[in-house]
């Protein structure tokens, strides 16, 4: 829980957005995030985001699945409850490969989905602040995090010069919080209803 001050700049074209991102970064402002209506290729590079480690996590989940399956099946079929199946050896590795494969996929898939949701701060009964409702429609919304020393008026005019069609100052919760959509209690003082 951290309530912060943000300056929000809205762009209506990705051709304008890219140079603006570059300008904002060279000016030394810290970009909190950029919300776009669709996935924009190369924006992550322009923002200087590091490569996601989601695939490393996926590999680890997969390996966990493999080990779980192999150790579990081999313990059951050789130690706990050895069965004679068609005269095959108790340690019948080829027969276990399909199940091992399935568990690898299952662990990797479920683990990665949950990790992805955690990284994106998505979960049931959890809310996040929306900086601009049109970010899901046709606006590219760049959110810049302010410090105590940031001159917000300067920053807003800077964004307008960089091509923003709309700028805005918001005090908002940066992270997720537990809440529900019908009983909306925003954990910050400046409650601001945005025109869609």
């Amino acid at each position, binding site marked *: 829980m951290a309530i912060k001050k943000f300056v929000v700049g809205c762009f209506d074209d990705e051709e304008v957005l890219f140079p603006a991102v570059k300008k904002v970064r060279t000016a030394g402002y810290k970009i909190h995030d950029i919300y776009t209506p669709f996935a924009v*290729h*190369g924006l992550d590079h322009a923002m200087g985001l590091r*490569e996601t480690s989601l*695939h490393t996590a996926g*590999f680890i989940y997969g390996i966990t699945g493999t080990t779980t399956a192999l150790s579990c099946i081999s313990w059951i079929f050789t130690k706990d409850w050895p069965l004679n199946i*068609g*005269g*095959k050896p108790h340690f019948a590795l*080829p*027969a276990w*490969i*399909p199940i091992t494969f399935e568990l690898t996929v299952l662990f990797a898939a479920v683990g990665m989905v949950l990790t992805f949701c955690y990284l994106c701060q998505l979960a049931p009964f959890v809310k996040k602040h929306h900086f601009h409702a049109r970010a899901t429609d046709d606006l590219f919304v760049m959110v810049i995090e302010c410090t105590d020393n940031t001159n917000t008026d300067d920053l807003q005019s800077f964004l307008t010069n960089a091509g923003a069609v709309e700028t805005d100052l918001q005090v908002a919760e940066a992270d997720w919080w537990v809440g529900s959509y019908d009983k909306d209690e925003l954990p910050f003082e400046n409650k601001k209803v945005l025109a869609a």
Partner: protein
Amino acid sequence: MASIKEKFEIPGNLKTWSYALIGVGLLALILGFVQKGLSKDEHEQAIFIGTVMYNTIFWTLVCNASMFFICVTTLAMGGWQHVFRRVPEAISTLVPIFGSITLFVLLFVVFTGKHEIYHWLDTKAVDADPILKGKSGFLSVKFFTIWSILAIGLWSFLGYRIRLLSNEADQGKFDHLTGAQFIYRSAVRAAMFLGWFGLTVGSTVPWLWMMSITPHWYSTMYSWYTFASSFVSGVSLMALWVIYLKNKGYLEYTTQEHLHDIGKFMFAFSIFWTYLWFSQYMLIWYANIPEETVYFKSRVQGAYKGIFFFNLIINFLCPLLILMKRAAKRNYTLVTFMAVLILFGHWIDFYQMVMGSISKDEVTLGWLDFGILSLFVGLMILFVARALASKPLVPKYHPFLKEGIIHHT
């Protein structure tokens, strides 16, 4: 259009290398012919012919796989492959050349009745054997000959038509209508090649050429398995040539992004190959029926055990673990290394597929195999370099070229 190096000039040392490899190969071929081919012992003869046979089949199918690559990406309306499509095109010009060698070897085996290789050529044995008698419509000299000639002839012809059409993209700008017609005609020709490819490499040809060495045994997976093997090697060969040309300063439009996608093909089809390897093996292992396990007897429990499992390590575990990371697929050195490893691994795979049936009790891998391999590698380098030099390296006016240049993975 910015100035790019359009014409490939064959460097002198590439020619020297290819001639040296061909020289070594010819020497090995002659030595092998004198020592084994002329031997009174039919088994020794079969080892010599079998060694030539699996090499020529392997290289024919690998070169044909690059035409398959062009056709598949064309039909999928891909744009990214056009920046380097002249490389697989150049490789596919080898299909008629290696195809003729294959045809010569196969027809020699069939017409001289080398039943040490194809047991079904022995008419007396077939008459006494109800199983072989039942297959005699498929495994007969007549069908074998006609089908092999048709297969190689049509691969060459349909591939030639695709290369011919591709030349049009060098000649001048398309307008909207002629561009659309060009794409449509490319798709039709690609579809024709793929249809025939499915009927041959995808089903009958590996059954005829290689599975029939053990005529009692059958596996419907076999052709897919062979196809996967040859396709992943074909993509690796393409990667090697692309990287070689990049190193020499050609193919300016081909970037890491394209290499990444080629790497994905190598990675994915290595796993596809393993999937087929396992599907074929596991069902037979599970059912444990003697007429099915006969193929694996010499491979899993016999002399070929080492090669059989070594094969699985270099064709599955190495690509899986090494090519898995994104950074690895974008690294020119690693992709080169993996491409060589995959080509070698699948060459070994073809080796055990053929020689594991011809010489069941003894692994014959030795100077002859590597000598003949060097003959084919030398021929491949020589002819691919010539084909590359004969055409512009980039189809300048291809309607999808821009899509290929700005490709982003």
